[in-house]
């Protein structure tokens, strides 16, 4: 039996032990177990450990977080003024730079900058709290 085969069988056996469905039939699992002593030994060891663990519960944790959370709920982040200030400053800087150069260039670049800024602003709020999973280790 190769290692990949055994892993797949053990994974399926543990899923059955956990009361879950698997892609492998009981006949496939039994015929593998009948011919593979390593898998038989391994599954017996794992089952005895996890039969014990399955009967346990989490240690409850005492917590009273509301008193610390409540005052912070009223602290809103007013981010809009900062965005408008940033857009204004960028626009001012552009106007300052463009006045010294060819005005034809300004006509071309300003609408593009506006569209790009609008697109970025509407597509993604940089202050939004991330609710997607990020697994950091």
């Amino acid at each position, binding site marked *: 039996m190769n290692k990949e085969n055994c892993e797949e069988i053990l994974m399926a056996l543990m899923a059955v032990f956990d009361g879950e469905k698997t892609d492998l039939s009981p006949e496939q699992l039994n015929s593998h177990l009948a011919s593979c002593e390593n898998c038989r030994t391994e599954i017996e060891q794992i089952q005895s450990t996890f039969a014990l*663990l399955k009967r*346990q519960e*989490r240690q409850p*944790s005492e917590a009273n977080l509301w008193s610390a959370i409540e005052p912070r709920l009223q602290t809103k982040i007013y981010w809009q003024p900062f965005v408008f200030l940033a857009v204004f400053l960028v626009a001012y800087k552009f106007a300052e730079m463009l006045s010294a150069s060819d005005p034809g260039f300004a006509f071309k670049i300003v609408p593009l900058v506006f569209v790009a800024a609008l697109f970025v602003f509407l597509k993604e709020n940089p202050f939004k*709290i991330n609710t997607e999973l990020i697994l950091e280790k």
Partner: protein
Amino acid sequence: MDDAAAIEKIQQGESDAFRFLVESYQKQAVAHAVAILGDREDAKDAAQEAFIDAFRSIKTFDKTRRFYSWFYVLLRNRCYKIAAKRRETQNLEEIEIIAPQEGLAREDKIALDRALMALPADDREIIALKYLDGLSYAEIAERLEIPRGTVMSRLFYARKALQTNLEKKYE
């Protein structure tokens, strides 16, 4: 009041309704954070920050989901952020993940707690969700936002690692 009613009220601007959610889930949240972080104070900090994140992003809450499954993603993010920043020197062996109960010998409980604490945080987390919380593979997949097949394989390797840790303790 139930979760849906509380969320509805919070979305309409009644922030006091958030107290109901905090008080309903704070113990569970801290227990889950302890299993990831292995430190009670860090776990409380993570839970507190995650509740504030939940309050601030409650308008994006998908009403077809259960509140705690959605909140759990925020909690995990906070836990892994704290884990990345925190000090290294902690006596993780003193943390109890498993509740004492009749029929479980004290030395077996200590061995299980220590073997769990010696696992990487994500292995410990998935084992606890499966065996201590009794969640199905589909429920774990929803909590961790991973496919069911990934739950199966991650559980497989986490179980092997736990088995190895337990064998070391008894050698």
